[in-house]
């Protein structure tokens, strides 16, 4: 209806009045910008991955087929990197989902000083990721970590105690503890983001449902498992896809905390792509590693989209 009316108006007006055309004109610059700097590089990444380009000679001269892919798959770092990327993503995701649900359950109510609490809670996400990693690097320092100090002061750490004879845990210096530390950093950093999404879903559940449940004598946990969680399910799926994409595609935390060490035991694919492609100068191999991320990311995105739309159409 509106379309028709503006169509009638456009008889005596130019572009500025034709909704469809003007719409395209206003949309085009953003789309073109994104296309040139996101879609084009993506295809360039594919081209690079089947070439022999290096940082010293970045032009694509020779087609080498799948040689880069085969070569990187034979390196021991590849298996470890893939394993760690998967472990880190799933472990962070699980913890974030549980904590975000709990946190949104708290934030849905009003209380005094909520603004201040929100500032503290969102701080980890507001912090630039590299600075967050640096903060944790110091927080879990091999010698001066205040966590070690706390553990020592309650006699859980140190000679003759539960956590071993050493005075320090060396968080980033051991394989599993290193991974656990990396996971902790991701949980810390992305919890606010996931909470925002879950909270958005939580506040849109009609309040009378909860009031009814209370009248019927339903306890907290019963309400949580029977009403809140089922109603939140679609948004939880969306939140987990977003979070997983952010964790799986990130290299900063690994790059600045363990640097993939000791050996390659805490290496993740994105940082390995960086080491190979930029530091090591083998652009083509780096591009090949980065492309290994893509199928997973694509599947994640498609799932996220489908669930999101299903949630919307309900």
């Amino acid at each position, binding site marked *: 209806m509106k379309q028709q009316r*503006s169509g009638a108006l456009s008889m005596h*007006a130019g572009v*500025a*009045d034709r*909704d*469809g055309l*003007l719409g*395209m004109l206003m*949309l085009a*610059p953003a789309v073109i910008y994104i296309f040139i*700097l*996101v879609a*084009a*590089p993506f295809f360039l*990444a594919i081209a*690079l991955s089947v070439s022999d380009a290096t940082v010293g000679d*970045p032009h694509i001269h020779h087609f080498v087929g799948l040689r880069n892919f085969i070569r990187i798959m034979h390196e021991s770092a590849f298996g470890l990197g893939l394993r760690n990327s998967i472990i880190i993503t799933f472990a962070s995701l699980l913890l974030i989902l549980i*904590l975000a649900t709990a*946190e949104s359950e*708290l934030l849905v109510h009003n209380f005094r000083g909520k*603004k*201040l*609490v929100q500032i*503290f*809670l*969102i*701080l980890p996400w*507001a912090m*630039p*990721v*590299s*600075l967050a990693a*640096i*903060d944790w690097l*110091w927080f879990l320092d091999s010698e*001066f970590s*205040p966590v070690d*100090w706390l553990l020592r002061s309650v006699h859980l750490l140190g000679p003759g105690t539960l956590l071993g004879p050493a005075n320090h845990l060396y968080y980033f210096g051991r394989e599993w503890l290193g991974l656990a530390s990396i996971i902790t950093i991701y949980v*810390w950093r992305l*919890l606010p983001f996931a909470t*925002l999404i879950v*909270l*958005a879903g939580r*506040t*849109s559940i009609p309040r009378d449902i909860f009031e009814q449940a209370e009248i019927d004598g339903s306890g907290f946990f019963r309400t949580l498992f029977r009403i809140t969680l089922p109603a939140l399910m679609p948004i939880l799926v969306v939140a987990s896809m*977003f979070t997983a*994409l*952010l964790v*799986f*595609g*990130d290299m900063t935390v690994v*790059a600045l905390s363990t640097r993939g060490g000791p050996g390659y035991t805490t290496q993740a694919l994105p940082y390995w792509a*960086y080491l190979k*492609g930029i530091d090591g100068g083998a652009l083509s191999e780096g591009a090949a590693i*980065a492309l290994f*991320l*893509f199928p997973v*990311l694509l599947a994640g*995105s498609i799932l996220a989209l489908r669930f*999101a739309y299903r949630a919307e159409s309900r």
Partner: protein
Amino acid sequence: MFVLFAAFPALWMVITVFKSDADLYNPYNNPFIFNLPPTLKNIEFLFTSTNFTVFLWNSFFIGIIVVAITLLLSVPAAYSLSRLVGRWGQHSSIAIFLVYLIPPTLLFIPLYEIVSLLQLANTVWSLILVYPTITIPFCTWLLLGFFKSVPREFEESALIDGCSRFGAFLRVALPLALPGIATCIVFAFALSLSDYIYAAVFVSTTASRTVSAGIPTELIRGDIYYWQSLMAAAAIVTIPLAVAYGLLFDRLVKGFQGDIADDKAAA
């Protein structure tokens, strides 16, 4: 508990800033209290003996230009999607958000090629060129929600009064969306400040570094960590951002909510 988990490492960061060496590097001291009087020496060191001010200025400069580019492109795009191009535009919000989630890790190698081809490597312009790929999708998504919540009636009466459609956008919709635009400015700035990967890959000269790449690389010299100054730098950057995000908390929740609620109403 949650506040503690979120704030504990940050608290440790702030305490560290004011500690003197002798206090900090003694494993027998209680790390949470000042065993020796607090000092401002570390902040002074940061501003006088490091390139921190250079990084700050670079980040600021990049941020401003990125914000300008982002607004110029994403405000019209969001308006167009919410009003002009039909139903699919209104439902595109989650798809747009997904573009924001495409990780830089997938793109930094080809973008590095493009940047060196354009001879922009090692300049702030390489980052100015690339950051809008992160900020445009995010801000378009945020603004789309805003334009959706502006009642159409205002613009329609402007149209009847003889305004052109573009005129209605400029004079009616734009002023009504100002809070949304302000939110966008904050986030576009913050996103451009936060990036590490592009900043680390494209720029390797001190003069063009940003805070988020410069602090980890330049303040850690070999194995020598200037922890207090590092923490001071991190705190100076983080605290304003945290306050800004915290105050915009509800608006962000509404942004995600808009995605669900609006389409529910439409369906």
